């Protein structure tokens, strides 16, 4: 989480580079401006304002884009929310449905909408399919593939190996806070990943 503003974690080590340039991620608004978006693992605690509706959640991270000098343009906001609702196929009565009444998969899509509306270059997805039914999982993978095809960088964090093997072009294996292996899509398999983890364990 500390890639994205330093509000989480106290000791900050390391830097974020994009296109070979150092990116200022000292605060969350700066990280967003730099084109980073972080879809958090815990969507209920960290992703959504549950008692707000889909529309309000969708535009929250980029409110200024639907407002001029601090005044929200209702029609523009409605249009943005309606667009994302149909694009990501969020199942709801309307964009005015409260996020709390949505299923896990649809909640996740609302969080995705929110971050897509910030037009990020790099999208960090932290366990994007946790607690979601199979159908919605498939839809989320489709969305991820679409985004990648559109040229967005996607960094996916997951503890579900089949998911990683199915979606990623490159996999970094981490163990106890360190990167222990880098595998290309061709090299990556359940065995090779497990082997990398075991090997790193032996060294200690």
């Amino acid at each position, binding site marked *: 989480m500390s890639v*994205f*503003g330093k*509000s989480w974690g106290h000791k900050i080590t390391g830097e974020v580079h994009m296109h070979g340039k150092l990116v200022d991620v000292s605060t*969350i*608004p700066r990280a*967003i401006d730099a084109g980073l978006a*972080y879809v*958090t693992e815990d969507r209920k*605690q*960290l*992703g*959504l*304002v*549950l*008692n*707000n509706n889909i529309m*309000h959640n969708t535009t*929250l*991270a980029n*409110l*200024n884009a639907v*407002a001029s000098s*601090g*005044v*929200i343009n*209702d*029609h523009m906001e*409605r249009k943005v929310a309606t667009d994302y609702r149909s694009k990501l*196929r969020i*199942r*709801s*009565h*309307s964009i*005015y449905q409260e996020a709390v009444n949505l*299923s896990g998969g649809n909640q996740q899509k609302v969080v995705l909408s*929110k971050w897509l509306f*910030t037009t990020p270059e790099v999208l960090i997805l932290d366990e994007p399919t946790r607690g979601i039914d199979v*159908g919605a999982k498939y839809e989320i993978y489709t969305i991820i593939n679409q985004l990648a095809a559109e040229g967005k960088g996607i960094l996916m964090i997951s503890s579900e190996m089949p998911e990683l093997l199915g979606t990623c072009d490159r996999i970094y294996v981490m163990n106890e806070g360190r990167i222990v292996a880098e595998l290309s899509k061709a090299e990556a398999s359940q065995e090779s990943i497990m082997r990398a983890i075991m090997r790193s364990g032996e060294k200690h």
Partner: protein
Amino acid sequence: MVAETSAPKTTPSVGEYLKNNIREYGLLVALVVIMLFFQYLTDGVLFRPVNLTNLILQNSFIVIMALGMLLIIVAGHIDLSVGSIVAFTGGLSAIMLVKWGIHYSIVVPLCLILGGLVGAAQGYWVAYQKIPAFIVTLAGMLVFRGLTYVILQNRPIGPFPKDFQSLSTGFVPDFLYFLNPLPGTITNFFSLVVVVALVALAIYYGLRDRRTNEKHGTENEPFAFFAGQMAIIAGVAIFLGFQLSTYKGFPNVLIVMALLIALYTFVTTRSTIGRRIYAMGGNEKAAKLSGINTERLTFYTFVNMGVLAALAGMIIAARLNSATPKAGVGFELDVIAACFIGGASASGGVGKITGAVIGALIMGVMNNGMSIMGLGIDYQQLVKGLVLLAAVFFDVYNKNKG
């Protein structure tokens, strides 16, 4: 699951609509019922022009403070210090006006700024040091009450210059007296004209909103409902306006209050700041991770509260024509109660300006009605306490059921 997406947008029937919005209209209905109830119990005294005017003068400052308090409660905090800030700024204004003889055009803005500083001093601890607002403002309540005794040296100061008093006891003059068709009954024709004009504007904008909504394919409330609601509001507004116009017209504070209500309604419903405050109150962590500077926002809600409390403090001082160290004792409770009766949630993120205003009016009408009936302060508190509990219970019950 799939069927839901393709479900057509249907306009809800009147009954359904009522059920979904029972909280908002329920509150308005409750206010009207309480008014009629006391109108009956007081043998018609409540709606007399003089009493209506009094009602406004007695409650304007509660309404004004409820606007700021609502933002604080929506943000997920509380402010117990407003009663003390009222006394403190009232005292400061008295010293400057009466003892130092400074003109009110300097004193009023200066006191508003000082109120803002008091709010900032408290907001700093809440926002940046993460001390619960309950504790910070409890401390503030004691500190500023104490400071008020210090600066006033435990004595009331007064009387104020006439022009300052008119802030709170003055009336808007009758600019249109020469057009008055009924000089015998109507003593301030201007106020009646303003009320009718406002009602006409409200209907015009209501209809226009409906038309744009239709154009953009958004749901409207059922027309019967819209019409009924408009008719009731228009009827009540014109009746009250007429009553006021047969006495002295609009009190100055009514204008101040109305402008502030309009401003804060706009801020909470249409501005990005308002939206961010609601998001922060609903889920602070998510709001923060969405790039909202929650610390600064919290800080400003307290500054804002301080400014409004300072305004209320001056209105009260001007009304009593003296600044006393005991001014505003217990006001924080009335203001907070108004917000909760108005449907604000103690856990933050929920609440409306209109709700807080109606909540404050309900409290005010009950105070006024019970005073006219000659009920003692003891029973008044008992009744107000029970009404608060009932209103919040109604909320909780509705939420669990829905």
